[in-house]
């Protein structure tokens, strides 16, 4: 590890994540999440945030399958290869506790569909990453809420990075209070 040479600093798993991408987008919470509501512990968008990256499907139009539901429900024939998801809300059950149990299985099913459609994830499996990434996201959110962390990252950004790479970026979202 120490002193070894790599070809480029951009060969990190965060290669697709410019630490400055956030500066190009608005500071509006992407899913209208309010900390005062029970959404405080909602998992963020499952890596499909389109902020600053054209390879991800853009958010749905407001009022039309917006939020997590809308993003998961994007047409499957987009160039990103993202599959369509069942039009069931992941966010609602998770937050309200009503029918909470299906929330994770639905997400896992979506991952299975990705595999069927030959979607190749950078990491071994986004499903495999989900559990531990979600743990850390919850932890991060407990500590930092929706605040900006290192280089403008927020917990949900780190969650998305974790989903992709399987590695929580502690250098951007330290799991300790500042």
């Amino acid at each position, binding site marked *: *590890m120490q002193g070894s040479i790599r070809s480029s600093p*951009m060969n990190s798993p965060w290669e697709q994540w410019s630490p400055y991408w956030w500066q190009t987008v608005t500071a509006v919470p992407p899913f209208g999440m309010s900390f005062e509501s029970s959404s405080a512990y909602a998992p963020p968008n499952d890596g499909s945030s389109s902020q600053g990256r054209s390879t991800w499907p853009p958010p749905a139009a407001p009022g039309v399958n917006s939020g997590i539901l809308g993003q998961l429900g994007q047409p499957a024939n987009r160039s990103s290869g993202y599959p369509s998801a069942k039009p069931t809300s992941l966010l609602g059950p998770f937050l309200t506790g009503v029918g909470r149990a299906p929330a994770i299985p639905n997400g896992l099913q979506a991952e299975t569909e990705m595999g069927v459609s030959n979607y190749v994830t950078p990491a071994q499996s986004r499903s495999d990453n989900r559990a531990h990434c*979600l743990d850390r996201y919850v932890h991060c959110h407990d500590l930092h809420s929706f605040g900006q962390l290192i280089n403008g990252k927020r917990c949900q950004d780190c969650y998305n990075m974790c989903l992709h790479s399987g590695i929580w970026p502690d250098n951007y979202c330290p799991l300790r209070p500042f």
Partner: protein
Amino acid sequence: MLERRHYELLAKYESSESIDFDANELAIVCGVLNLHFTDFTEARLPEYRNSIVQAIHEQNKVLTELSEYLNLDNQGLRVEALRYVVQNIAKIKSPFMLDSIVGTVSHRADSPLNYGRGRRSAVVVERLATVDRTEG
């Protein structure tokens, strides 16, 4: 404990932005990551950055692997969680890693200082149980 400026430096040297050579900054970053460069020359800046990026990646990876601590802690197995950290303490190789793991361990899920934790615990416990049922 590390300060925010240390993390900002890590992010700076990991980014794709071009940066000016600064031996003092490099010394701080390499110290945080426990990289043993004794002196710094401008010509070797790319090498330093490569090593920094790789170290951050590898150390983050180990820290993520240690998230088993969180799994145990979220299940209310506090002592077992701490024992897990003790058993794996040798994996902590740098101030950066130590800072991260100490912060994680010291953040008590049920601390009254941490708002909303009670509600979170119930959610997490149920979610973990759901995942276990699904994947088991």
